[in-house]
């Protein structure tokens, strides 16, 4: 019996060694360990042995043989599975550059992108965001901003007049500054607000000028606000938006709604100065129009173009291109 067990074991081992695939292994498993398997048959024969000792010896040998064959089976199977998986994986090989175009993400407009980047920088500096109507009354657009009728500075604004109400009473806002007045009327200081939005100028468009474009304006009103605070805020913005290597300066200028007024320029790391926008201390007449006592509070305001930020960032040669709605343009950004 022991010999038979050995023979069956050796035979099974030899066949496993010759197996060429996992299917072979499964056949061998059936033939050796299955219901009619060679070792299984021998197990059935144990009862016919004469002595306890014989039974014990044969039983032990049979268990060892069964365990050894089962281990060998598993090992061979694992070996074949690895090889077969390797073959299968290679069969599945893809060329990852064979890509057919599928509908992709949408593209936010360049102006929106610039707008949101600006908003985010100012939010980081502690500002909130206000909005207002694009069609405005003459009062909000001019009069409340220290530009009464016949004020010479009105000629600096090429205004679109709107046929609404009494003639001359309604305009397309020429700047975002009317929102300043609305904000002042609605809130009590402290006010730290930016006001982005669409504005309109009745001037012929060319590669660098548009009749419809976007501005962002800032307004700070609090107790004890100074011109130095304005310069410092512009400086913080410059570094946060353009980068640490940039600095800013204020140059005296004139706007009816601020005094003292200034232009602000930024200096690139290369040393070039770029004119960016206008700013100044809010004129006492403007504070009064907004219902704020200029003896108690002071403030500053600043503003500049959003479209130009997009133009400069992406080196867009002609600003008019931004408003063609040409998908070939929109998809570039």
């Amino acid at each position, binding site marked *: 019996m022991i010999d038979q067990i050995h023979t069956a074991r050796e035979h099974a081992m030899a066949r496993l060694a010759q197996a060429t695939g996992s299917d072979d292994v499964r056949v061998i498993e059936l033939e050796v360990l299955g219901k009619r398997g060679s070792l299984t048959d021998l197990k059935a024969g144990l009862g016919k042995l004469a002595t306890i000792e014989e039974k014990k010896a044969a039983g032990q040998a049979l268990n060892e043989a069964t365990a050894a064959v089962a281990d060998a089976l598993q090992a061979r199977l694992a070996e074949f599975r690895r090889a077969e998986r390797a073959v299968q994986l290679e069969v599945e090989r893809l060329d990852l550059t064979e890509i057919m175009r599928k*509908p992709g993400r*949408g593209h936010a407009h360049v102006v929106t992108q610039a707008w949101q980047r600006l908003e985010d920088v100012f939010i980081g500096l502690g500002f909130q965001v206000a909005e207002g109507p694009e069609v405005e009354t003459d009062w909000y657009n001019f009069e409340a901003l220290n530009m009464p009728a016949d004020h010479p500075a009105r000629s600096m604004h090429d205004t679109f007049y709107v046929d609404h109400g009494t003639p001359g009473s309604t305009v397309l806002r020429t700047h975002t500054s009317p929102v300043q007045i609305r904000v002042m009327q609605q809130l009590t200081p*402290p006010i730290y607000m930016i006001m982005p939005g669409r504005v309109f100028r009745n001037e012929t468009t060319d590669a660098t000028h548009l009749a419809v474009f976007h501005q962002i304006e800032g307004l700070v009103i609090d107790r004890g606000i100074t011109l130095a605070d304005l310069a410092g805020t512009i400086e913080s913005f410059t570094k946060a938006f353009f980068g640490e290597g940039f600095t800013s300066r204020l140059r005296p200028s004139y706007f009816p709604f601020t005094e003292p007024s200034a232009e602000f320029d930024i200096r690139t790391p290369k040393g070039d100065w770029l004119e960016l926008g206008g700013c100044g201390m809010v004129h006492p007449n403007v504070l009064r129009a907004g219902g704020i006592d200029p003896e108690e509070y002071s403030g500053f305001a600043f503003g500049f173009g959003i479209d130009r930020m997009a133009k400069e960032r992406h080196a867009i040669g002609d600003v008019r291109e931004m408003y063609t709605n040409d998908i070939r343009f929109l998809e570039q950004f």
Partner: protein
Amino acid sequence: MKIVHSWLNELVPVGDGVDQAVVDHVADVITNVGLAVEDVVRVGASVKGVITARVVKTERHPEAAKVHRVYVDSGDGIERHVWCGAFNMQPGDVIPLATPGTVMPDGRAIEPKPILGLQSDGMLCSASELGLGTDHSGILILPAGTPLGLPYGEALGLGEEVVYDIDVLRNRPDAFGHLGVARDVAAKLGLALAAAPVLPAAQHPARTATVDLVDGDRCPRFTSLVIGGVTVTASPDWMQRRLTAAGMRPINNVVDVSNYVMLETNQPNHAYDFDTLGGGGFRVRLAREGETIVTLDDAERTLTADDLLICDATDRPIGIAGIMGGQNTEISDSTTTSALEAAWFEPAAIMRSALRLGLRSEASARFERGMDPMGIDRGVARFVDLLALTCPDLVVHAGAVDARAPQLPVPPVLRVRPARVSALLGTAFDVAAITALIQAIGFECTPQGDDLDVAVPSWRPDCTMEIDIVEEVARLYGYARLGKTVPKSTLPGGLSPMQQRRRRLREVLLGLGLSEAMPHPFLTAGELEKAGLAAEAVRLVNPLVVGDDLLRTSLRPGLLKAIAFNESHRRTGVALFEIGHVYPPSTDVLPAEYEALGVVLAGADATDAVAIWRELATAMGWGARLDQGNVPAGMHPARSATLSLGKDAIGSVGEVHPDVAEAFDVAERVAVLELNLTVLLAAEPKVAQWKATGRFPSSDLDLAFVVPLTVAAEKVDKAIRQAAGGLLVDLSLFDVYRGTGLPEGSRSLAYRLRLQSLERTLTDDDVAQLRAKVEAATKKMGAVLRG
């Protein structure tokens, strides 16, 4: 405004403009006092490499019709040949020769260029090519006897001038004259300003040009002075050079002095021929409606009763006050006696007249900003001073007139609080510091306790409030020296909830593959009707382009134009959105402006637009009723619906009417979604609440129904949900079939119901019961469960 360096240097000793360091410094100073220098140019300088040469002979070439060969001698004995396209020179003429290597003012480099195989050793130059005026009719012929081989500038005695082009701000009318700029520069650099000229003593016999101020409110000061011994001749070279550099054409000594005085002292003035002045005097009155005058520029001008006229004493119009003189009393070569007018006009009225007449002159540009009412005296003295240079026999006649009306402005005295100045500028300024800064530009300061009384000089009409003085202090002290501090905001920065929702909306739209368009908000007449929308819209009074004058009431026309544009560039299937304002008419103070969302999907059908709406509604927590029975204007009657919130329409969804697509030259089907964001973004959306996902297995039940076309899928949907109750965790329509095998007027809708219990594994019996309930419920509405 062009400021000439040598001129400025005469008024304040800043240094010679030959030195570039001086020029750079002056430019910086001018900029830092608020008169931005936009450009600094050197004019009248010789172009390097252009030398004088003599024409030896000229020679035609049989094969060259438009050019000839000119043999020139530049004094070095070498004969050079130059091809030339101008024929105005004779042998012996001295001409400017640009030698090879010269870079012309327009950037052109001169190279030896062969024509017909023959070299050209340079180029002969016209006046305009050298930047000496506009004459390009021929080669510049230099005076006979000019030495050869010299830089032509040296040969011509040209002087170089440095010119600062400055941007004069609205609040600085005084800076339209060299004197005003010089005053700021002198204060900033601590230099002395040139003394004012003094009018020489008047001589007898007295001669008077009378002045009758009929409408004195419009002209509160008018002076006249009769000057004899005038000889009309050319001005000195230096004056001509400065006037040219400042952008004015020299004419004769009288006109030139008039212009020179204006550019220097900022006082416009007019010299009349006294002998042609009817009645020997002036009369200042408003024009009669329709009255005409021929101005110096030969144009006949028709006036209104709001225009002010200068007339002679016989009431004949001789000039439009403050704007332009008339032709009839112009100085001529035979003028020997001149009547000099210098006046102050009411600024706003001059602006109105200049605008109405479309006639802005150097004088009107100054008067409309507000001149110095006391600057007349310095202007007149300077006029006499300068005219005497070319008229040795000049006589200032006694009998000058200085007519005034009570409307002549009197400069204010302002109370200035140093504490206030310091608080606004963030740097401490006391009485002495303020006085030191502003007294230098003519503001007289008188201490009043801790404060100051500041007398504004007559040339600064912009200063009317304390805050104006704050600016003067800041300007003269220097903005850069005021430092940079950051105010401490006690508020949290951030977007409002509405603004946050708008950003979320935009992100979802972008994620859905839509790109953002920004069409023009103006529409032309007919475009709203083309889009099938109501024609009523708010109009622009003064559109940029005639006809481009409607304010949009919908985003749809602009987006359809965008689709058409892209189709015409072979880009079909474009999916765009816009978030922008629309401006429907209203009887309120302002139009009924609101923010809208527009989505257009080219080559898509209505259900694609509804799918976008559903995605947005889920993402944004919006709910609205889709009402296909209410077809929005301009939309496909069988493929669109109104979106309503309560009774209010808040949008539309579907496809544009094929007629509309056609009218916009769009070939594809266009699916559209339009929403009123002002309403939708204002509402606080419901925050999604957690639902348990369950751990017991789910089972799917697929049911197909035959449903009459008159019953909306939405209804079947609702019936299934109600019947299935809490066990239904997901319902999706996965197949729609129309065609053979179905009763007429119906279609098949196939749904997959995913069923799951939170408490146990569902049995076959549970599913069967639910199926029966659904079947019963749908049957009631005519939806019959198939097979």
